[in-house]
């Protein structure tokens, strides 16, 4: 336990927490020792697989097989780390760049892919764009496009758990761009007053689409804002998955101990484009991208595992091949499934379908049957 946690008075620190240097050298062996080697390997494999999924999916989107995709390339540690650090009863509010939350916590891979396609088995029933999945069984809350809205919601869940006497913390993910929204402020302030066991995980990846950090805020660090809410504030090297695990664990302990919330700022970099709708060449340099490419979280963990003899090029290639096959095959399966049923347009608006929606449903059904609709069911 860091001395940052030794007291119940929240503390704000902007010295980035790191466990490994960019070249994989261990800076905090004690912490590394808390994580079984098998887990380190599993985490690396999962991040590498994610990299492969992301690359594949972007290609598929270019081929017109997906409507949209958004990768977490370079930021894998910021979702696999927290997913690993927290417990089954904890609640997650991911943004759109945290696939690791889903996949590490056990959302079925095929369901995740079905969401990318929006087919009849998509957990959200084809209602949202790709990358907006949900996983109730894993306490992972439905992803929203509007950014920041989930921050006060996460505080509500954290408070509810506390009220019920449950030992659960709630964590919310968002980018540094999102931290400019009013909901950020409102949520963190409520969390402070309520001493809610919440963790606010800000991925500072340098950009909000094209907008660089300097145009997002004049604050040196987002974590400094913790001062204004009377909660803990921590900066972490977001490309160091072990450091991420460490700070999330500490934040969870702090919350479970009844001390309240923590704002974590993870410094990382969005190596990929914002999404398949974006082209970063117009707003940043190739040098900058290359610089961060070198510091990517996979390289770092791999270097460590290799020194320990836990990883090698053969395993690397095997993992890449297996992941690639896995995603291609799942995508093929997903593409083979039909569209969600017409009912899905009118269901789940309310618990029961009211008369006016039943009437609209009948009207639309007749329209499709007439053969005059622009929509062709699949």
């Amino acid at each position, binding site marked *: 336990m860091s001395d940052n946690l030794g007291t119940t008075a929240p503390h704000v620190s902007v010295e980035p927490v790191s466990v490994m240097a960019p070249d994989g050298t261990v800076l905090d062996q004690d912490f590394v020792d808390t994580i079984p080697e098998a887990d380190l390997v599993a985490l690396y494999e999962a991040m590498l697989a994610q990299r492969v999924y992301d690359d594949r999916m972007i290609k598929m989107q270019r081929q017109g097989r997906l409507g949209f995709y958004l990768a977490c390339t370079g930021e894998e540690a910021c979702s696999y780390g927290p997913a690993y650090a927290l417990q089954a009863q904890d609640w997650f509010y991911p943004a759109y760049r945290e696939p690791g939350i889903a996949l590490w916590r056990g959302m079925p891979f095929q369901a995740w892919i079905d969401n990318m396609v929006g087919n009849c088995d998509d957990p*959200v029933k084809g209602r949202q764009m790709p990358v907006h999945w949900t996983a109730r069984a894993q306490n992972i809350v439905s992803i929203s496009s509007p950014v920041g809205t989930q921050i*006060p919601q996460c505080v*509500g*869940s954290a408070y509810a758990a506390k009220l*019920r006497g449950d030992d659960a913390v709630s964590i919310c993910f968002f980018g540094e761009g999102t931290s400019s929204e009013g909901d950020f402020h409102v949520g963190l302030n409520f969390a402070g007053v309520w001493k809610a066991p919440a963790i606010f995980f800000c991925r500072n990846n340098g950009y909000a689409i094209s907008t660089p950090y300097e145009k997002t805020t004049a604050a040196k660090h987002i974590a400094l804002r913790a001062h204004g809410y009377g909660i803990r504030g921590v900066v972490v090297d977001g490309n160091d998955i072990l450091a991420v695990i460490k700070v999330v664990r500490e934040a969870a302990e702090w919350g479970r101990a009844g001390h309240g919330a923590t704002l974590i700022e993870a410094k990382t970099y969005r190596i990929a484009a914002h999404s398949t709708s974006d082209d970063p060449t117009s707003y940043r340099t190739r040098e900058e991208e290359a610089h961060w490419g070198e510091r990517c979280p996979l390289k770092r963990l791999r270097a460590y595992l290799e020194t320990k003899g836990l990883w090698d090029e053969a395993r690397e290639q095997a993992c890449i091949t297996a992941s690639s096959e896995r995603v291609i095959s799942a995508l093929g399966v997903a593409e083979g499934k039909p569209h969600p049923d017409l009912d899905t347009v009118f269901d*789940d608006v309310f618990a029961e379908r009211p008369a006016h929606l039943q009437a609209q449903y009948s009207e639309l059904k007749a329209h499709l049957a007439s053969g005059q609709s622009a929509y062709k069911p699949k």
Partner: protein
Amino acid sequence: MAKMNIIQAVNDALHLAMKSDDNVVVLGEDVGKFGGVFRATVGLQAEFGEDRVIDTPLAEAGIIGAAIGMALYGVKAVAEIQFSDFIFPAYDQIVNELAKYRYRSGGEYPCPMVIRTPVGGGIRGGHYHSQSPESLFVHHAGLVVVAPSNPYDAKGLLLAAIDSPDPVMVLEPKRIYRGPDHGKNWGSHPKGEVPEAHFTVPIGKAAIARELTGEGTPVTIITYGAMVHTCGKAAEEAAKEGIDVELVDLRSLQPYDLDAIVASASKTGRVVIANEAPRMCGYAAEMSAVVTEHCFDWLEAPVTRVTGYDTPFPYTLEFAYLPDTGRVLKALRDVATYA
């Protein structure tokens, strides 16, 4: 049965709900120690504690956002927004999040909770303590919206809202909180009699606040909230002139009781719709369109709206602005004599 005004009925409903279910939480600005600026939550914090009756920071987005998070987790939050004019900082949370949660999560995350908020003019509140925002919420699918017009319905609808699996907005007409006549006199009103036990008024069902007597030209009025009383008075006046009003108190705005509307409009063929909100794209517009679509062949006169004007809400000239008995009466005469 007990005599209650709307505030007492709301307070009583909250009290019952919190007592019978530990899972019910009340939150909002000044709802705790103070008991709310309209006193609707008086006594709750003393009885149920600060953890369940929460004085929040001044941030409507936080009140609604946190209540959503509670709902997702399984706690039933009843949030108060002090005046509906101040609900707009939470508009995004309500229309993009609350309304859409069940749908966008494929049914995995329903979001049952309640928002209570006082609406409407007539209390000398001017611009920002008088607005009637119902159509702005009805337009977004996913929100149940109810608008009681009396203490009985206020209690029964609020309890139904708390029991509902859907998010429900309860729009409380503040000008009749303490009585329909210039804020007085629930005592003598039949709907001022309210059962003390738990009961619900079904969501989606209108009430007939005045039935046809069979004497005179029949006309339907469709309305809700405080306007039920304005229209009721107009109906009494109109009766003297040979106009026989069936007064439909919608009670639920989303979903609404199409059967009751069609039954009345097709019977009378003459329809007046009244609401306090500005005219353009207000709830009355929807009712007008619906009546035309479903009852065209029965219509003897154009469906006619009596509404607030398309201006912000004024202070000094409030009672010129607000649709009053005289304006409803004029509309009744117009549709009754239309030929």
